[in-house]
């Protein structure tokens, strides 16, 4: 049982991701998967000498799919957390980032602790680390849980909620979309790291994945991807003086 599950072609590497998280996981105009994670997965498949097959699965469905053997790996900008680690194994981290906050123009607070007041409303996306962070750290504000990122940012834009906690890159992009009505607090409020998800007990594959990540890092693979997909953001973050990954 090495990197494969019952009844499937062992020469295919099935990677699950939710293709709605640009620029990491998305599709191009021709409905082909594309993005940083996709290229990474391709490189990994090449390294393993297998054909890559990408399964587009909603974020909440990724772990069940992995656990029931429908996919071999999760590469979907997934943060390693303790709870998740009880269900599945994780590779070594390959990217470090942090949560940021999008606030509405009318809100004059400058940190999440200022926002955490009675009567305040904070939006998070269901199942994300922002959701977990809010559950653990916000004591007074009401937490509203959204399925869709676009809904959460629209709520901030329309002033229906005060803040939206999500990762740096998404907050930045959402702010760009609603620049008239929102403000982005891009200073990370915590730090977290993304890892590749592997089914528990599939240790052979885990070793291979970790080796791959180390080599990929060393050969500058991540930097190239950063330049290809995130050059504008990189420059912008430098200008604003906030830390940025890649």
């Amino acid at each position: 049982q090495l990197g494969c599950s019952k009844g499937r072609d062992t020469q295919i590497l099935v990677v699950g991701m939710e293709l709605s998280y640009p620029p990491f996981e998305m599709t191009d105009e021709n409905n082909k998967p594309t993005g940083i994670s996709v290229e990474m997965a391709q490189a990994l498949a090449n390294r393993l000498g297998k054909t890559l097959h990408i399964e587009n699965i909603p974020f909440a469905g990724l772990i069940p799919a992995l656990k029931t053997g429908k996919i071999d790996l999760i590469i979907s900008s997934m943060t390693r957390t303790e709870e998740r680690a009880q269900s599945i194994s994780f590779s070594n981290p390959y990217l470090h980032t942090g949560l940021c906050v999008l606030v509405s123009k009318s809100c004059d607070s400058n940190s999440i602790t200022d926002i955490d007041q009675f009567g305040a409303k904070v939006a998070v996306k269901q199942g994300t680390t922002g959701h977990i962070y809010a559950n653990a750290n916000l004591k007074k504000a009401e937490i509203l849980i959204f399925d869709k990122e676009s809904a959460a940012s629209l709520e901030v834009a329309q002033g229906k909620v005060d803040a939206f906690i999500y990762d740096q890159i998404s907050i930045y992009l959402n702010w760009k979309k609603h620049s008239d009505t929102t403000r982005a607090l891009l200073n990370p409020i915590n730090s977290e790291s993304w890892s590749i998800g592997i089914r528990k007990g599939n240790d052979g594959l885990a070793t291979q994945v970790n080796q791959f990540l180390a080599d990929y890092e060393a050969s500058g693979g991540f930097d190239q991807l950063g330049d290809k997909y995130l050059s504008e953001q990189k420059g912008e973050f430098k200008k604003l003086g906030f830390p940025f990954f890649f």
Partner: protein
Amino acid sequence: MSRWVSFGGAILFLSLVFYTSFSALEYQWNWESALRYKKKFADGWIATLWISTLSLFFAFLIGSLATLCQRVRIPPIRHLSMIYVELTRGTPLLVQIFFFFYVVADAASIQNRYIVGIAIMAIFSGAYISEILRAGIEGVGKSQLLSAKAIGFSEYQTFRYVIVPQALRSSLPALAGQTANLIKDSSLLSVIAISEFTLNAQEVNAITYSSFESFFPLAFGYLILTLPIMWLSRSIENRLRFET
């Protein structure tokens, strides 16, 4: 007596199917962590109960009104009501929720998401109910309407004493089905962060990284809401039964 034996047998058979399916699954059950969040389930269930009850009430109001409008002699009103019914039945609830909450309610400065959510569900289900009622009403025989006229019934009395009781019998199963649908569809309100049953269950799923554990309470919780409605409907249906 033998009815119950057969019923029990059927249930036993189904349970067996479920059981073998689940045991074929290599899955590490993790009930404790799901159980820890029982308050979350309860809160969501109660929210769903409230939202459904209120929506249902208004859905029947709107549905009846739309049906009446389609019988009115003023063409624009009739057509407006027809367009409402077809547009609403023809488009996904998800789109309607987004549209009403972020566009219409925003333009009307209604902020309370529960009010808007109930309104959306009522409008959505109202269209289905209207169509069901229309069909029921049109199924009432002409000779019955002639008889009502001959007796001197007013239009309202004809409606009340002839059309409704006869249409109800044929519409009841569909109405019960629509009610069950409303209850279940209200879970889509989670997209505007209304913390109802499904959202809360999925949240538990997300938090505890379980996959199936919260689906059992979820299925069970909805069954508690929907089964009585279907049973009630069947029993009323039996009571309304008459031969033509």
